[in-house]
């Protein structure tokens, strides 16, 4: 029943439209003239080395970073300081042991944490929390203090928190970092399933495309102040990335995984170059 309501409320235009956006500090652009339209339910991986401006892009979409030029629209409206149409999955960071929150409260806050007024959680909201607990297999952990959750457990609740209010767009900022490979796989699958169930688009910042390779529609690769957008097959190629980095880069495919060789050197040169300039 909820799903019908959601499909009706969502318009047909792009969820997110970035138009001629440039961001940089000290005249060095992180990226310039970035154009990107994100369709409903689309999964886009944002890849690049540290300092390539991946997180800054998310911050710009959240209105926390001011573009040098260009515009960003969420549901055809200029972005402001965050939005209830956005679900956000932060990096995995364990929370302080004395944080007065139970795991289930993360979900509740995702649903009504923005609401002013007497802090009562309605029966409808409570049953919504129970529903999401089922989706993320979190019933057993629900009443544990958040400070006692492991990194992987916490991230499961983060995914639930991000989807519980039926967002149009999920922003994920390296949500798999600090997790082991098995957990990365479980969590990537969970994000994929939940975004499909809630027909939300995803911008997924990561330095490794492999955990999400099967679910990615397009890749936005940032490097060297430039970018490439396209399907993984179009972007994750030796010639394309070599051009982007301005140095020889080898993209090797092995058993369905992509390994990029040589970016370290390329990045390093770039760094040295910057420092001397």
């Amino acid at each position: 029943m909820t799903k019908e309501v959601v499909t009706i409320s969502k318009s047909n235009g792009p969820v997110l439209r970035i138009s001629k956006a440039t961001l940089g500090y000290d005249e060095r652009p992180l990226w310039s003239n970035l154009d990107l339209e994100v369709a409903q339910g689309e999964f886009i991986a944002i890849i690049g080395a540290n300092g390539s401006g991946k997180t800054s892009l998310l911050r710009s979409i959240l209105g926390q970073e001011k573009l040098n030029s260009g515009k960003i629209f969420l549901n055809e409206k200029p972005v402001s300081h965050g939005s209830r149409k956005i679900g956000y999955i932060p990096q995995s960071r364990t929370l302080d042991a004395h944080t007065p929150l139970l795991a289930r409260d993360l979900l509740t806050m995702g649903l009504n944490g923005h609401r002013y007024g007497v802090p009562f959680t309605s029966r409808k909201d409570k049953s919504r929390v129970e529903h999401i607990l089922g989706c993320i297999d979190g019933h057993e952990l629900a009443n544990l203090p958040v400070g006692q959750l492991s990194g992987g457990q916490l991230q499961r609740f983060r995914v639930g928190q991000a989807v519980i209010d039926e967002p149009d767009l999920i922003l994920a900022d390296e949500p798999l970092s600090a997790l082991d490979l098995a957990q990365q796989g479980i969590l990537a699958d969970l994000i994929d399933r939940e975004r499909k169930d809630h027909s939300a688009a995803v911008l997924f910042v990561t330095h490794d495309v492999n955990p999400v390779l099967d679910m990615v529609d397009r890749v936005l690769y940032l490097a060297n102040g430039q970018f490439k957008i396209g399907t993984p097959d179009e972007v994750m190629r030796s010639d394309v990335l070599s051009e982007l980095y301005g140095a020889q880069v080898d993209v090797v495919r092995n058993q369905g995984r992509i390994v990029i060789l040589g970016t370290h050197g390329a990045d390093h040169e770039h760094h040295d170059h910057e420092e001397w300039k």
Partner: protein
Amino acid sequence: MIFDFSDYDKLLPLVTNSLIAAALLGLMGGLIGIFVMTRDSSFAVHGISEISFAGAAVALLVGLDVVLGSVIGSAVAAILIGILGTRAKDRNSIIAVLMPFGLGIGILALSLYEGRTSNKFGLLTGQIIAIDSPSLFWLTGISIFVILVLVTIWRPLQFASLDTEVAKARGVATGKLGFGFLLLLGLAVAASVQVVGALLVLSLLVTPAAAALRVTSSPKLAPLLSVSFAMTSAIGGILLALGGGLPVSPYITSVSFFIYLVARVVEVMKKRSAKASVTKGLKA
């Protein structure tokens, strides 16, 4: 004899005002204390209370209402901390810079004041037994206002305090809420200074919440426990002081400290029993 409860029935009616004030302060202090703890603002409480004291002392000197002076002092402190200390790292140093300056002004004003000495001491160490009706009126007004606003902004403030990044992404005005919180804290401090004194405000605005967070992680239970600890300290302190004949502040701070100690013991016992049950589970 430290305690003498023989005239208790005659003394009790004399302190009804004080008991009402204590109950309200406990409610307010216990609630706002939860955010003082989760926003790591204990030092801000201390800083604001010293400057609140300065405001009260100046008011006493120039013949203005003491509560008004203390509210103005608190508000100035809260605004300065809010504007200059937006980053957590800056905040503590800003407070450390402002506090001695405020305290200095307060001491200067008191040394120039030629009225009753008990008034002077009261500002630093509390005067709840001597609380009069106009002060009670102020106190009630301020506490009720703080409690109502705090309950209204509870959810967004909690989101902003405990899960800042996500709250920002969801459009919660974390910066404005933080500033609003400091202003509320300023009012709460100004009210508490009247009763327990500038030096002992922490015992009502921090200790009860700190104790509560030792024994529970439930966001519902924590404020309930914190409020009951704060009320027990404030009311219990007065009732003990009646029999003891000493100033009320040491009783309040002692009760509140004792509760904190018990909370820490309970915490250790809870951890032990949790470990024991894990070991049992492994053996079984």
